[in-house]
């Protein structure tokens, strides 16, 4: 890791430099509108080498999958095949335009259509829309669809959505954006939905239940064993079931969520179907739906018309979630990935993801206890407060000193001092064993040399930052 401070791009600027050679004008010049001419533009002025060194040095201040183990729970930080990048970078995809016309983009439409069909098969859905641009965006589309479904039946009273307390924060936030009220459901002693609380919740909101949002496997990494019963109860109460597919990496070829009573579901296509996270995105949040909701999917979607492919809005579509047809570049990667794996490969992905997680779980829980200790799926949640004065944050920061990215911490909220570990299928047994060795070592240090943990990390360009002060008087832009 590059420890040297790197000046801001503005601070390495020198007047008159330019890093790009542009063609000379080959047409006459035309006057700009006098009242609108810009007189000052304070962008940096750099040469190309300075640009390259600056950003290369910045890159070296990151942990990444290509350089480090990244067992970040619920984030599915697996290795993404480089062939995906080649595919998405083909000029025939990169340099084509969303409005060039169906006749002139048959290859892109065919890929979209094939991917829709493959994802419908993997998820057990009737139909799929690839429009949403991220997981949360797919969630929003899904709750809009649930709302539209009830309204289409003349039922405007259904405004409440039940959400387990282990859910991602995006679930309740998506409900709010769809004008629905989120009601929290407690988890039971096994980490699943508390069935009595579910029944009570459905009764208390009788006639007003729009549906339930359920993540399966949930954020504890546990498969919701009552999923079909939950769906039956919610349907009986007149509600619909939303499936959050954030953790689909545990289920490809193992279980089709659409067969368990789920009416609409998103997949984080970029996670399970392999686009690098890019330091924050882009993602893709495809939505799949069963019989009740297929007509409400966002659009347009690709359809086959005789010999050719076309775009069409589903019959009762909630409309567009974004301009054009989704994050197409991510779709190309997902398509390429699925083609390289095939049905058996996809099952192997889930099997190894779950096997790696369980292997780590049985070894880690000897030093870091679990609140819910039954067999896990693709991830598990341990607790970091293993010695007096030691918190999960200290464990996380000490891991950095050993060259490992911390697990997700303090989530889910129902586990105190949570350390959420997701190794993924692409990590080797040797890497997992090294992680166990380091975690065991840190557990010893926590008891014998806690100051090492409190001071961590010390091997990085900066130590722990004062985030409270940063938020109190925010500096959000460079000022000369």
């Amino acid at each position: 890791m590059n420890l040297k401070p790197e000046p801001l791009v503005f601070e390495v600027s020198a007047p008159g430099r330019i890093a790009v050679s542009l063609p000379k004008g080959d047409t006459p010049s035309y006057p700009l509108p006098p009242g609108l001419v810009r007189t000052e533009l304070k962008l940096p002025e750099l040469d190309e080498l300075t640009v390259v060194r600056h950003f290369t040095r910045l890159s070296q201040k990151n942990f990444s999958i290509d350089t480090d183990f990244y067992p970040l729970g619920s984030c599915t930080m697996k290795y993404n095949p480089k062939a995906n990048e080649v595919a998405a970078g083909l000029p025939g995809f990169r340099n084509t335009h969303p409005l060039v016309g169906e006749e002139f983009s048959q290859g892109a439409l065919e890929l979209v259509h094939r991917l829709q069909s493959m994802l419908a098969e993997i998820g057990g859905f009737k139909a799929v829309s690839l429009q949403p641009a991220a997981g949360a965006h797919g969630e929003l589309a899904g709750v809009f669809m649930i709302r539209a479904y009830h309204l289409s039946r003349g039922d405007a009273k259904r405004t409440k959505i039940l959400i387990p307390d282990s859910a991602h924060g995006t679930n309740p936030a998506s409900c709010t954006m769809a004008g629905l009220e989120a009601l929290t459901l407690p988890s039971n002693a096994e980490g699943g939905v508390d069935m009595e609380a579910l029944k009570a919740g459905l009764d208390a909101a009788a006639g007003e239940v729009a549906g339930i949002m359920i993540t399966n496997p949930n954020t504890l990494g546990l498969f919701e064993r009552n999923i079909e019963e939950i769906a039956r109860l919610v349907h009986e109460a007149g509600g619909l079931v939303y499936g959050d597919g954030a953790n689909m990496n545990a289920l490809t070829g193992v279980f089709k969520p659409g067969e368990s009573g789920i009416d609409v579901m998103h997949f984080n296509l970029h996670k399970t179907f392999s686009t690098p996270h890019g330091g924050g995105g882009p993602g893709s949040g495809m939505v799949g739906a069963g019989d009740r909701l297929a007509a409400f999917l966002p659009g347009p979607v690709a359809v086959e018309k005789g010999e050719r492919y076309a775009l069409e809005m589903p019959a009762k579509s909630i409309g567009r979630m974004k301009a054009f047809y989704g994050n197409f570049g991510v779709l190309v990667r997902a398509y390429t990935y699925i083609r390289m794996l095939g049905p058996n490969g996809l099952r192997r992905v889930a099997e190894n993801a779950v096997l790696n997680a369980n292997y780590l779980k049985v070894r880690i829980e000897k030093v870091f206890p679990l609140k819910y200790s039954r067999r896990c799926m693709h991830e598990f949640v341990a607790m970091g407060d293993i010695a007096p004065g030691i918190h999960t944050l200290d464990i996380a920061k000490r891991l950095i000193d050993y060259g490992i990215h911390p697990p997700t911490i303090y989530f889910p909220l129902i586990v105190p001092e949570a350390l959420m570990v997701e190794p993924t299928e692409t990590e080797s047994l040797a890497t997992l064993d090294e992680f166990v060795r380091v975690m065991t070592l840190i557990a010893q240090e926590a008891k014998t040399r806690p100051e090492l943990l409190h001071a961590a990390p010390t091997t990085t360009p900066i130590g722990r930052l004062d985030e409270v002060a940063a938020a109190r008087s925010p500096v959000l832009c460079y000022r000369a």
Partner: protein
Amino acid sequence: MPFVANSNADRAAMLAAVGVKDMDELFADIPAARRFPRLDLPEALSELEALREVEALAAKNVTASTCAWFLGAGAYNHFIPAVVGAIASRGEFLTAYTPYQPEVSQGTLQAIFEYQSMAAELFGMEVVNASHYDGATALAEAVLMAWHNAPSRDTVLIPAALHPEYKDVIRTYFSAFPVKVEEYRGDPSKAPLSDKVFGLVSAYPEFEGELRDLAPASAAAHAAGALSIVQVDPIMCGILKSPGALGADIVVAEGQALGNAMNYGGPFLGMMGATSKLVRKMPGRIVGEAKDHEGRKGFVLTLSAREQHIRREKAVSNICSNQGLVMLQACVYLAAMGKGGLCAVARLCWDKAHYAAGRIGAIPGFKVENGAFFKEFLVRTPVPAEALSEKLSRRCVVPGLPLSRYYPERKNELLVCVTEACTKAQIDLLVQSLTEASK
């Protein structure tokens, strides 16, 4: 098998360590009847075969690499310097997560801070967030933000000449709320403002090309107690006054033009800036400066009390994953272009577009409809624009967007876009092709 490191021997040892005899037992939580369903998918291909297959699909598309390209309408064919791809494809950026652990993410965090700073300068705003999904969702979230700023008001005014897909996205985003989305025609300073209006949206320039001084519109919005929301072409900000200088409170843009390919419509870059007064109502991630215990400067995700992972149902938005890598591309693009380059690109667009408009307007039967415009202008055509477009596209001259794609009744209107990537020879070819095809 590819992309899984465990050998059969590893798996056997690990199953034993877990204490199960086989995979079936490992997945015992899943109802047996539903476990390991048949997947009706094509069998796996090798990397070589898979790439051949996608290459064959890619080859069926008409692209800007091989055609004279005058189609814009929300996705733009601008030149991308090689340095952008070289940096954005570095694994340390490409395969890093969202920078929640600042000590091991200073590269991403500083790049976001630099992007925020350069974009804020471009827009004339005080704060820019770390991105939205695209220009349309950035605009929809900006309108939500304006509503949250004045929840007792119930109307937003949007231009009739806004990108039709942006209008659709705003309608989707507001489908559950008691808010009226009303369209106005022409000059935004004459839009029907009232004490019910929380936001006035204007476009700089409009989808149909028209370019206006928006200072009077912002002043009118402020006089009515509404926020001025401006959707801008970020390249144009290289030579024309920023929306901030014209009084905007919130600025949004489609940032694809800044170093990102057209990608058949995505991934793109939703850009959003605002005045610092509004920052705590702003959606999306924001990076700020911070200090560690030794006083060393670093960068961190900040003001997260606005966000879903902290506030859940009370968050200002549900956005989580954004367009991080595309933002990085825009960051490198702006740094590489810098002051001189961006200004030059914008000027090339301006000159070439005005040359093209002059020549097209001189073809018998053709007329340019705009008063003022930047790189895109609306042409009235003597024959249906869709037919022209089809005919010319077959000859690898993609002349623009027939407006009938969005408005079936507007058959004889073609939206033509000219960027620095078009040569004079290509423009002359377009003029010649339009002349011949309309005879």
